[in-house]
């Protein structure tokens, strides 16, 4: 093992002592930035959740969260598909996120409910944009608040554009 000259060691120790406050300051600065960033994100998330809840209460928005059994009909009145849509969470104000499930595919659903009890949403397959199975729907809550009814339109599995009536009922 190589012996270190005591004078060199002394110089290094002095240099360390001189550097320490700067390094410490920089570390405190970096740490504080990270903490501030994390706290900001957390506060934003909490405020967004709270604001969404207040907004929905104020406007008396219906609760769209949960599982819905959905019937999608073609324009000629024949049933195109029946599947399940699960609305997972409120994002901001009346906006929500969820997904739809069919035996062979899953699709993402993004939408919004407003004070007039209308739900406007877009859907697209999970592997978007590789396979684009995409469309829109606009539904209205019925009088007893149990079902959403409206219309959908989009590009189907076959690649052609189609649409028709749609009905969502609690699954």
């Amino acid at each position, binding site marked *: 093992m190589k012996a270190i000259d005591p004078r060199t060691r002394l110089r290094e120790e002095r240099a360390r002592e001189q550097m320490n406050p700067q390094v410490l300051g920089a570390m405190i600065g970096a740490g504080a930035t990270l903490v501030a960033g994390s706290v900001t994100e957390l506060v934003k998330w909490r405020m967004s959740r709270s604001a969404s809840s207040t907004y929905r209460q104020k406007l008396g928005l219906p609760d769209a969260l949960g599982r819905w059994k959905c019937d999608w009909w073609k324009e000629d009145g024949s049933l195109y598909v029946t599947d399940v849509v699960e609305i997972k969470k409120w994002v901001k104000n009346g906006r929500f996120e969820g997904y739809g499930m069919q035996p062979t595919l899953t699709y993402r659903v993004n939408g919004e409910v407003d004070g007039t009890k209308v739900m406007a949403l877009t859907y697209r397959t999970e592997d978007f944009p590789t396979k684009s199975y995409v*469309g829109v729907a606009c539904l209205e809550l019925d009088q007893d608040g149990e079902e959403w009814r409206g219309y959908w339109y989009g590009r189907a599995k076959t690649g052609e554009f189609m649409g028709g009536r749609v009905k969502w009922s609690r699954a």
Partner: protein
Amino acid sequence: MASPAFDLAAVLLAVIVGAAIGVVITVLWYKKQSEGFRARHEIPSLIGTWRCQWFDDASSGAGPKIEDTVEVVRWTRNSEFVGEGHQPQFQLSYPVAGEIDPSRVVTLVYRAARYPFEPNRGVACLELARDGLTMEGRWFGRRFSNQFGGGRVRCERVVQSAA
């Protein structure tokens, strides 16, 4: 040696500068990500002004029920965009938000100008033509009269003539 007040001020300044840099990086990151995403999937640009005709299935006439302009203002994330519709006949503007995919299908959500206190809102799904100059599809939503319905929609890009 620096005073504690100076140290505190330096730390606070570092936090503020760090946060500002974070915001700028986030904005640039989303912009870059959107550009990359659109270039990778050869997504055509929608930015610009579109003259749109909104037909109504419930209307007996062959002409459009509403004619207005929709201005796609900017890309937000990946292939998502935001814009604004202008209806000069009713002197109102309304916000639109949408997304386009590589196969040129555009999904659009529009809201009333005085949302959420007006019923007029809905969705549209359109296909952009290969030349990027027109798009056609259908809309569905609640009309200003509170009735639910839909119809065809056709938009044409307003090409600015060179002066």
